[in-house]
């Protein structure tokens, strides 16, 4: 991320980097189903949200999919849970009996409009988040503060992490942070959560949730970040929909993950 920012900075020195909003003729694809489900090691209930795609120039309101049959199964202990919609028309479905336990494998099955979509995710062993600290990056004409997640990566196994950052109680939704120990197995990790869009200031209250996610979910988010590249030097030549762990062409993901969180005031 930072690398691309730097490249942009270099280009700006040589070039004018004129930026403007343009209106393009974009097709609107037929509405597709989007499923977002999770189960964690925190107390339930857990939710599954089902919605649909809209055209690029439509408002950011995504039609919920109601009346679907949603079933979550704990394959490890055999508990099958039939989810119900929180209220008719919300498209958000809630579990009743499922308990998230690390090491367990969960299956999500959604049936809507005579189509069936299934996904499986295994909740990894938990890794505790040690602490959060802050880094100051100067340059680009301003000082930027970013949170750093500090934790010990367990050696000998593949670990995948996702971070969710809250500033003064509000989740930063524009940036997705994932990390793989592919090049860091067994290390003590200081992972800087570089913020492209919002900045932290001294005195802000920052909370970081660290999830341990499985490989498919990591790949999903990694690809999602790649496909959403913004800026003059976007990251990939051919953006594509991230590979989902849900079958039958559904968009979205189903993630069984652990949660560890820390909170700190920016200093």
């Amino acid at each position, binding site marked *: 991320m*930072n690398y691309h920012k*730097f490249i942009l*900075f*270099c*280009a700006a020195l*040589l*070039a*004018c*980097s*004129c*930026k*403007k*909003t*343009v*209106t*393009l003729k*974009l*097709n609107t694809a037929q509405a*597709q189903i*989007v499923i*977002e489900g999770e189960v964690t090691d925190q107390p339930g209930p857990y939710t599954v949200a089902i*919605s*649909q795609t809209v*055209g*690029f*120039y439509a*408002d950011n*309101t*995504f039609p919920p999919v109601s009346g679907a049959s949603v079933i979550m199964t704990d394959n490890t202990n055999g508990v099958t849970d039939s989810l119900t919609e929180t209220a008719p028309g919300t498209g958000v479905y809630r579990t009743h009996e499922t308990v998230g336990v690390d090491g367990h494998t969960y299956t999500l099955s959604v049936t809507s409009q005579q189509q069936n979509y299934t996904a499986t995710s295994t909740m990894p062993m938990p890794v505790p988040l040690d602490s959060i600290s802050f880094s100051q*990056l100067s*340059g*680009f004409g301003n000082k930027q503060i970013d949170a750093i997640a500090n934790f010990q990566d367990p050696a000998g196994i593949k670990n995948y992490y996702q971070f969710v950052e809250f500033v003064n109680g509000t989740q930063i*939704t524009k940036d*997705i942070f994932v990390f793989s120990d*592919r090049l*860091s197995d067994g*290390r003590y*990790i*200081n992972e*800087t959560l570089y913020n492209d869009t919002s900045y932290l200031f001294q005195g802000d209250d920052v909370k970081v949730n660290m999830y341990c996610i499985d490989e498919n979910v990591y*790949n999903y*988010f990694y690809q*999602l970040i*790649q*496909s*959403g*590249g*913004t*800026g*003059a*030097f*976007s990251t*990939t*030549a*051919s*953006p*594509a929909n*991230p*590979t989902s762990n849900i079958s039958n062409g559904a968009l*979205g993901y189903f993630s069984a993950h652990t949660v560890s969180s820390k909170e700190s005031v920016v200093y």
Partner: protein
Amino acid sequence: MLTTRTLRLQRALVFLLGIFSPFLLSAQVRHTVSGTIRDQSSGETLIGASVAILNHPRSTVQSNSYGFYSLNAAAGKYTIVVSFAGFRNDTLEVSLDKDVVIAVNLSPAEAEMQEVVVSANRNNANVTKPLMGVQKLSVNEIKDVPVIFGEKDILKTIQLLPGVQSGGDGSSGFYVRGGSVDQNLILLDEATVYNPTHLLGFFSTFNSDAIKDVTLYKGAIPAEYGGRLASVLDVRMDDGNVKDYGVSGGLGLISSRLNIQGPIEKDDGSFIVSARRTYADIFLKLSKDTNTNRSSLYFYDINAKANYKLGDKDHIFLSGYFGKDNLGLGNTFGLDYGNSTGTFRWNHIFNSRLFSNTSLIYSKYNYNVSVNSGNNNIGITSFVRDYHLKEDLQYFVNSDNKVNFGIEVIQHTTSPGVISASGTSSFNPLALEQRYSVESAAYIDHSLSLSDKVNIDYGLRAGLFTVFGPGSFYTYDSSGNAVDTATYGSGQVVRNYFNLEPRFSMSYRLTDNSSIKFAYTRTTQNLHLLSNSTSSNPTDVWIPSSNNVKPEIADQVSTGYFRNADNNAYEFSAEVYYRYMQNQIDYKNGAQLIANEYVESQLIYGIGRAYGLELFAKKKVGRMTGWVSYTLSRTERRFGQVNDDSWYPANQDRTHDLSVVGIYKLNKKWTLSGDFVYYTGNAVTWPSGKYEVNGQVAFLYIKRNGYRMPPYNRLDLSATLQGKKTKKFDSNWNFSLYNAYGRENPYSISFQQDPGNPAKTEAVQYALFRWVPSVTYNFKF
């Protein structure tokens, strides 16, 4: 092991010569006039000068890359005319009762003379020679074409030729006839240049002060070249003035150049050293921010060459290039990268008809990245390195027959990545295995004049690519997991790929000044650049063919009509081509290409095709010179995993591509020039919808490259003011304006949530260059 292979290749070569020999026999008593053609003023050898017996156009031969010519004729007295664009013709009276050696020195035509003298006998090789899809540029020709930042640049100038497409606004990257950027073989004094650009692609690695000759082959590629699919760009450096010492240079707004040359021993040896440095980053020093004012953003490069004549038959050359880019942000981030090449050449004239050149070549490209943030210190390095031996022989049998043959062996070492990390770093130190491979080839090429009308050129290149251990080679299942590991010891053969590459071209002369031509070329490629970003990155990595990655193969047929008019003052050509490509490489969704020992699991393989029509008209003499080039083309790819296995346009697919270049000599002082470029926008992947995931808006993609960028167009203007010219001192001022009407050509378009209205999403266009003015002062003494 190497030597047995070389022997085997030699045996194959002798066998091939045996096949060709019936064509080479001649009965009459014949003699040869041979020698070297030079520029009288500097002693620089002239490449591609024409030598012909007066009134016998079929006898025409051209000087080779070292200025050597050899013309063979039946015993008798002849008048021989030697000509070269921009020089006065020379006429030799030769009495061929034995082999004779004549050194020819041509004197440069004065600007005002040029029109008269040069037009008297202009060369029509473009019509008569069978080779097609070839473009030759001399530095003289490019010096007046306006370019961005006022920096003369051969890579940007060739983008104005038909069939050659720009890599993007201000970019030195280029695509030839539907090929990718890595499918161009770019040679500097025979050494492969792995990254031909500086500063993120905005400058080329070629300092035109040190360049003598540039030839681009995009259609019929002679058999002596191999290793890349789409084109060969053969760049030759100046040898240096053997008569006099000279200093020249230029001062520009963002870069300066200096060039020193002179004799080592008058008429027998010379040297040239040429250096450049950009200083765009001096502005950073003005910043108050300590991290910013300690930042760097510059490149420098040095070209150096020396040559020495060892008697009449031997000549040695030593040339080298070293370039380095340095980009850094304080001490938090650093990236440096560069090419270095070295070439040692030995020309030997066995006899008046057999010319030999032996080259020993070194080439390396490497990069270093360093990141320091908090206690997270890591460095990443990577390189590709070649040791290369090449032997080329040119046998000038007679004026109807010429045979080129030779062998070459290249040892490639690629290091895809080494990570160094401090003890407190979040990353483990890691060294990916280096890969070792040897590319060997033997070739033969026969140019044959069958009649006054028919010329053919046919050849064969036999290439063997061998991947050696030590190393672990993985086999992957369909989902990309390594299922088997084969470990090879040092020197053990992992894989052999043998490829025969036939090359054929012919011309049929319709009239004195028009012809039709046909060509077929097969090319193969065993080194592949992994790059899945829109802009070419200095950190892209080259990998050799392996057990998983197969050699890329391309077959191209082309045909064309060539016509010159007004005593060769005008050139016109129309060519059509079709190219089919196998084993093309693309990347899986979200491919992880950096520091990945299983990187081959991230690749997908497919096919490609490209076809098009190229029109070219050029006015070569007069006060107004220039050209118009138009390409109508289609470039497509097909991958099983993309767009339901159907053909789709490649990124660089551009239906229309038009360039107009005009240079006008207003008077003795002022030269005005301009160029206009228009092309269809690239094929791009844009969203066809959106959805919400993880609380943020994500975009829905339906089809790869299903949309088009807006068309690109631009006008550049330039004016050169010639200073007072004396024997001792010559200078000029160049003023140029890139993108004169300030069009915001989109460099990229990205999609995001509207910051002003979170309920909406918007498309944001980035344009890089509007009205880039520049001033350069050039001097010479």
